[in-house]
């Protein structure tokens, strides 16, 4: 028996030692990392679907400067450790540029690895400041958390939406606590009164009666929800059950509430959110994107999908600006692209963007309000 185990161990070690050969052919290989399984899978899948659409469109139109593009998605289960494994796997497969990762915590780990390798990283939706802080090789499409929190507080102040503002946030989530931190900073400068933020965790996101009761008793006129839409849908449902109807104000994580299965969409009427993307915008670009996404995947794309779609086109613009070719080394491609990123201006479905050298996009958030089941500009 022991001998068999030994033999098995040796065989296993041999299997693990699979060698790799770097493949240098004539396509740009763009890797994608995001949660394709597990609790956050909806975001990862949206990103991968939209990126694939963009890549297909580009290839159909003749590629980037005549070079075809290959997109390679990998799953990270929204886990930093798995994400690094996915990154290494993509490197083995010959990835030259990374679109990812989708979620913030894994992105911190992966961008540190990518900074080591000097590999160009563009995250569609990793919004925490640390996500792109490891090196000058990382850029993002979405707003950063601080931008969102601060912009929300400013918007509420400028439009005099409420005098007493409450918050329900997820204290175990990087995204939520990051936005709350800057919302509090913004609120400190504003004239409205901020009630004690009410926390919940990933393990307790099914019952919000205590938090809602507190906000109701203290007369909150507006409740800020820097959380993802799955928890928000429960909050809206429970608040309706206890006749508590403040103004609900969300951020980009709220996007997706109108496509959630089993949710009574009437409850989302009047919800305000800051988002860079609205699926029923009139411009041709958005309409084409929404149409082909619906065509292929049978649902309305959310903001994650929009970020990814813009991400691929941003990579295209940067490649064209820098004039890099697929036979260059990963590091040379990265050097070319990061210089090009500060020079280009991209108009996509999430607005018109330019980038600073530290990787942050410049674009302005749009406030929308949900009316009759669709986003309408709040202005």
């Amino acid at each position, binding site marked *: *028996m*022991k*001998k*068999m*185990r*030994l033999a*098995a*161990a*040796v065989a*296993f*070690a041999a299997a*693990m*030692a*699979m*060698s*790799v050969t770097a493949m240098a052919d004539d396509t740009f290989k763009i890797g994608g990392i995001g949660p*394709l*399984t597990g609790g956050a899978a909806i975001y990862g899948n949206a990103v991968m679907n939209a990126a694939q659409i963009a890549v297909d469109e580009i290839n159909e139109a003749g590629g980037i400067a005549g070079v075809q593009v290959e997109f390679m998605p*990998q*799953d990270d289960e929204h*886990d*930093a*450790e*798995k994400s*690094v*494994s*996915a*990154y*290494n*796997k993509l*490197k*083995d497969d010959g990835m030259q540029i990374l679109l990812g990762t989708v979620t913030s*915590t*894994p992105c*911190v*780990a992966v*961008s*540190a*690895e990518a900074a080591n390798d000097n590999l160009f990283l563009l995250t569609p939706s990793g919004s*925490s400041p*640390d996500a792109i*802080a*490891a090196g000058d090789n990382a850029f993002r499409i979405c707003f950063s958390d601080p931008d969102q929190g601060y912009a929300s507080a400013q918007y509420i102040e400028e439009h005099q939406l409420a005098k007493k503002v409450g918050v329900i946030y*997820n*204290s*175990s*989530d*990087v995204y*939520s*606590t*990051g936005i*709350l*931190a800057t919302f*509090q*900073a913004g609120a400190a400068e504003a004239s409205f009164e901020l009630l004690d*933020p009410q926390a919940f*965790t*990933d*393990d307790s996101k099914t019952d919000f009666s205590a938090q809602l009761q507190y906000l109701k008793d203290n007369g909150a006129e507006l409740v800020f929800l820097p959380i993802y839409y799955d928890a928000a849908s429960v909050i809206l449902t429970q608040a309706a059950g206890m006749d508590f109807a403040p103004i609900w104000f969300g951020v980009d994580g709220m996007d997706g509430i109108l496509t959630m299965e089993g949710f009574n969409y009437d409850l989302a009427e009047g919800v305000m959110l800051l988002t860079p993307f609205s699926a029923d915008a009139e411009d041709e670009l958005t309409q084409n994107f929404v149409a082909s996404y619906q065509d292929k995947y049978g649902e309305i794309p959310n903001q994650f999908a929009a970020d990814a779609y813009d991400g691929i086109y941003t990579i295209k613009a940067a490649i064209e600006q820098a004039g890099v070719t697929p036979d260059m080394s990963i590091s040379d491609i990265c050097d070319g692209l990061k210089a090009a990123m500060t020079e280009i201006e991209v108009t996509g479905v999430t607005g018109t963007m330019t980038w600073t050298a530290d990787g942050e996009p410049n674009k302005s958030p749009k406030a929308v309000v949900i009316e009759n089941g669709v986003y309408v500009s709040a202005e």
Partner: protein
Amino acid sequence: MKKKKLRVNLLTYGIVTAAFIVMQSLAVTGSLSSLMKGLLVPICVYIVLAVSLNLVVGISGELSLGHAGFMCVGAFSGAFFSKCMQDTITSGGLRLFLAMLVGALVAAFFGLIIGIPVLRLRGDYLAIVTLAFGEIIKNVINVIYIGVDGDGFHFSMKDQFSLGMAPDGKVLINGAQGITGTPKDATFLAGFILILVTLFIVLNLIDSRDGRAIMAIRDSRIAAESIGINVTRYKLMCFTISAALAGAAGTLYAHNLATLTASKFNFNTSILVLVFVVLGGMGNILGSVIAATVLTVLPEMLRFLNNYRMLIYSIILIAMMIYNWSPQVLEWRERHFGRLLRRDRKEAE
């Protein structure tokens, strides 16, 4: 009997060392894929976790579901130490070594204070209580904010702003966002040494007088008590050593990734480590080593299956469990490969 035990122990050290030499030489010559290279340190971490949990579950016979909690404590204290000492100690190896000591000591302390009330319980009750403690550790660390500036350390359990730091201060532990930017000191060599130390501690403990006392308690508590063995003391010893080793593994884990969040150390991680132990065999240290390696590498090797990956992984896991532990399959294996096994056994004796 004693000779056989020695031989099995030597085999364990031998396999681990041989695997290390093979992998290390492959890595140095550059014939190892990036994926495998990235997995080397996590494999070491999970081996140490599995072996240390086996001490509690297999040797002392108490079901613990809070192992990730000790890993979490070790990871955070070790990473915190390294963040503070980043400029003082410049040698990565030394810093990691000291961080591991800190992580192990802090985890041992938590093991001790949790063990005192918890080990009054047995069996299922103990399992539930350790589960609860693991969750408590995770949730408490989730709300801890520690920052440092010219005036020293600031501590808060509310939010980043209540730290009241000077503008030049930096936040070291940022609540749910955890610790970012831990120096990447973890190496395969460090992981290998940690495995050897763990094996040395655990195997020697099992073969010592104390180890026999612990196993006596497992096999018959009443008989053990009747010959004057101090049940609580031995159980506590076992639990604390296990926690310390898990803490050291946690520190190694923290120094391998640029980000560390408490939410990683949830109930699922505890169960994952328990799966390693159960698959490898209760009390079988070499089994834990192999099971931890196989089950860490397997999901990564299945990446080519895309969306079916986790499904296939689960099916393979079920198949492996049945192959290794189902009485019918064991009987079938005895019938078909019996001659081979018997010869093997004779050699081993």
